[in-house]
């Protein structure tokens, strides 16, 4: 009975919030296929079955990993609690640092009303991201890591959760003057070894999903890290399921010299928050 209920809910959410974008990506897919046929290359791909048996897996793969071969790969490690004690702040760590030539990392919570959590591009960073997300209900988490050869390497976890993480108002709204602290950030960076560092940040932001009654969507949607040479270290495109007061851990690649990381963020209202983090030289640490 419970299983059936969940299944029904999931379908409902799917058709409700996402039919338009599904339709669009469907169109794109058709275009892509017809082009491929003309050039005589391989036909439509097979989407491998999901080890978690998620009823949403095929549509998640079609929407968020639209082209290229899909393989389940143990090198994409998704670390998450078995059961979420707080469905508003569920800690998840993705480590795909054993994979080379990573282009982007897509994180999806299949049964959230808004499934896409983030799209990360590690340019001069390890394929590693720690963060927290909101869960509406028990859900599989799928992480697609696309390498430059066009292959999606997929890892997964399942998190048990009580309901309501995405449709309840943010805790900040208990305070009438929450906007005064908007964007306040704590961050720290340290050197791990001769070639990498670790940075963690936490920003005050309600990360409103737009699904709580009377509260429009309002969330941090862009985060970019650059090094002192101005090179892009990593860029993150963020979506509504990222938790309130979002927390991120990244692992930038650095040289042995001291470096300064510039972090810039922007939310959906155009609020900008920028700050810098220094990494000591290898000889100093």
């Amino acid at each position, binding site marked *: 009975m419970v299983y059936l209920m969940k299944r029904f809910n999931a379908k409902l959410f799917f058709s409700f919030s996402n039919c338009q974008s599904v339709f669009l990506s469907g169109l794109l897919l058709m275009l892509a296929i017809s082009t491929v046929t003309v050039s005589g290359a391989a036909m439509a791909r097979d989407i491998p079955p999901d080890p978690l048996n998620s009823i949403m897996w095929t549509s998640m793969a079609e929407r968020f990993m639209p082209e290229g071969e899909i393989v389940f790969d143990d090198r994409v490690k998704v670390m998450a609690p078995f059961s979420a004690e707080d469905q508003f702040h569920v800690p998840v760590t993705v480590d795909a640092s054993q994979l080379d030539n990573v282009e982007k990392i897509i994180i999806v919570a299949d049964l959230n009303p808004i499934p896409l959590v983030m799209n990360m591009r590690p340019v001069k960073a390890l394929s590693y991201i720690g963060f927290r997300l909101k869960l509406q209900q028990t859900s599989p988490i799928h992480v697609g890591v696309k390498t430059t050869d066009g292959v999606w390497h997929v890892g997964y976890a399942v998190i048990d959760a009580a309901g309501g993480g995405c449709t309840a108002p943010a805790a900040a709204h208990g305070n*009438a*003057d*929450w*906007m005064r602290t908007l964007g306040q950030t704590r961050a720290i960076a340290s050197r791990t070894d001769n070639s990498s560092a670790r940075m963690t940040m936490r920003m005050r932001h309600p990360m*409103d999903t*737009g699904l709580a009654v*009377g509260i*429009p*969507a*309002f969330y941090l949607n862009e985060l970019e890290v650059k090094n002192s040479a101005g090179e892009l270290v990593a860029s993150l495109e963020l979506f509504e399921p990222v938790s309130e007061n979002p927390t991120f851990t990244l692992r930038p690649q650095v040289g042995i010299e001291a470096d300064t990381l510039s972090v810039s963020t922007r939310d*959906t*209202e*155009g*609020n900008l928050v920028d700050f810098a983090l220094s990494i000591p030289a290898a000889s100093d640490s």
Partner: protein
Amino acid sequence: MRRKHTLLAAASTIAMGVAGLSGSVQALDVSIEEIMNDQASGDDIVSYGLGPRGQRYSPLDTLNKDNIKNLYPVWSFSFGGEKQRGQESQPLIKDGVMYVTGSYSRMWAIDIKSGEELWQYDARLPEGILPCCDVVNRGAAILGDKVYFGTLDAKMVALDAKTGKVVWRKTIGDYEAGYSYTAAPLIVPTDAHGPLIVTGNSGGEFGVVGAVEARHPDTGELVWSRPTIEGHMGTLNGEESTMTGTRNESWPGDMWENGGGATWLGGTYDPDTKLAYFGTGNPAPWNSYLRPGDNKWTSSRIAINPENGEVEWAFQSTPHDGWDYDGVNEFISFDMEKDGEVIQAGATADRNGFFYVLDRTNGEFISANPFVQNITWAKGIDENGRPIWDPENRPGNPAESADGKQGKAIFAVPSFLGGKNWMPMAYSQNTKNFYIPSNEWGMDIWNEPVTYKKGAAYLGAGFTIKPIFDDYIGSLKAMDPATGQVKWEYKNKAPLWGGVLTTAGGLVMTGTPEGYLKAFDDETGEELWKFQTGTGIVSSPITWEQDGEQYVAIVTGWGGAVPLWGGEVAKVVSYLNQGGSVWVFKIPEGLASR
């Protein structure tokens, strides 16, 4: 019949295919020239007021006095949610898309053919906003590939017109000090900086300082600012420019520091004189005994050179105001024929009940005539444009009362909501008349002591509104600006709170709080057509042409200042229901010629 249907469908598919193709190749790109020529082009509306002069006159004549009886709704779009309240917005139209703002700082893009939403932007407002007079918005501006509007927390937002995503967002004022923003932004051309987006501010009831500010449309970066109150410094290119007036010339002590003069209704621009005209609000506080002097430039019209933000001229309609007679009402440029001469004139119907005509090149006074009845606060306007006060009808000084707590109450006409409030009038190039949405009401008003406190109401007055006549308050009047004669009048039971549109087809259109959108004969005032929208109308109608058909649109939703401040008037309006929609009308195919 069936066969004809199929053929039509096939034809429209082809047309859509072509339109879709050109749409995807050409990004939206509204030029400053299009905005300046907006009045002449009937196929779009890219400015507030149907052209920079704000005449609200459309050259379209497909819809006329004979066929308006066939005007029917095409679609209605709901603003949704629980956030209804007053809807005072005028939509913009470009390339088959309507851009319309609503209460609580929201905006929508709607496909005009289908009435379907393309996107919605919902500003995330803080809890502590301080709008004095309902959570309204009056409209957007459009330039290049962006649409612009101001929010209740005193921010200016630029949105990508295709997606509704925020491009930039800048602060106009501190919302915790009482600043907010409700007017439609104005776009003006300059030689020095290119097109600029020019805004005023709101918050006159909280002792803010009125200002006009110009920003770069691409970045939101401030180019110049011009405070309206004597003694404050303006800025140009990030540096102090000049002081407005001379400090303490018409203000005592430090009262100028929180002097009011909010430019809360935005402005107009005249491409002939190359001046931007802004009106300024009441002085703060309302108790006039605390600020002896003329209190410049409150309750005034100021003409600003958009190249540098300097004041070219100013005209004060109510010096030393003691009745909350804001001077914000729109200043409409028009060419007036009088005694065989053509005068570069401008006209404005003031809160204080007088209709002023000025020389728009230099601000010189030409004439002032009452447009509401039984005005008591002044006996008239002298030959220099200065009111002849009636000392009996200025509320008394509380300092002269026995306990010092309340001055003598008097009855003044018009009321503080004005002979005319924010709702814009229209000027017909057809009849050479102005069509003024006005109200016949007065008030009991008395003064109290008050001191300034950040974020608190700064009034020092108490008041209650009373109708003057038993059977009506609202009054739409046709006025000849050359003679000051009222040509015709339409009386409405509830106060009128919506703007007016007039067309080359001989129509005058406005909405009523009772929910009707109405059309009148521009020569006689005869009511030709009405449609019940289901909630009160407090916004300004528009008309445009698309695919060879003339459309009309009106935003509906009862609210605004009347139900909040209405006094005895509340009885007339308390039964009116809220709403939040935009209605679009046209004449069904084949009926235009009947």
